[in-house]
């Protein structure tokens, strides 16, 4: 069956530009998560949605980061005025309620 999909798979942008990263969760999964993984590092939790609401935004590293989820399905992570330290792989995961998380392939973001 279809897994979690993310787009784009790779994104190269210039410092100061805004980027949008998209995540399509597994159909029927109510929870959606965003993580960031820097080169050779573990996973840094960014934000979690249960349905369309985000009970936990504590992981967002700055106010340049925002995320939304509409219709209880697709989510978009937006980074405004990108900085070089934003370069990382952004991983999305989904789960049925708070259960086992299934990960997408990630978006590799490079900020020049």
């Amino acid at each position, binding site marked *: 069956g279809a897994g979690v999909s993310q787009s784009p798979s790779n994104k190269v942008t210039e410092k100061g530009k805004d980027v949008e990263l998209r995540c399509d969760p597994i159909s029927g999964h109510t929870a959606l*998560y965003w993580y960031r993984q820097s080169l050779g*590092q*573990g996973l840094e*939790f960014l934000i979690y949605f249960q349905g369309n609401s985000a009970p936990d935004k504590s992981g967002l590293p700055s106010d340049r980061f925002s995320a939304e989820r509409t219709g209880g399905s697709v989510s978009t992570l937006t980074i405004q005025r990108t900085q070089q330290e934003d370069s990382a792989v952004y991983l999305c995961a989904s789960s049925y309620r708070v259960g086992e*998380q299934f990960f997408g392939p990630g978006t590799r973001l490079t900020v020049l």
Partner: protein
Amino acid sequence: ELKVEQNPLFLSMQEEKNYTIYCNYSTTSDRLYWYRQDPGKSLESLFVLLSNGAVKQEGRLMASLDTKARLSTLHITAAVHDLSATYFCAVTGADGLTFGKGTHLIIQP
């Protein structure tokens, strides 16, 4: 705050040897996960451990959970090169998973 610690963070071993990766966590949790990540790839779920004393095995990998000690182990038996990857443990907290930093495993022929 839930903290998850893995050790070792880096492990180089020879084929046919046995080794164990440890995952300690700081507060009570009702489930623990092990994931595998190959270079440039996303995370693949290996095991979900739900209760004290739970043991699961898949091929040369075996995971166990001791909730009283807040410890999980991932044991590798007679390692083969194909098991080279980074292994993460993750523990369920209030709002989702908290991950360890990962164990980068290299198995040399």
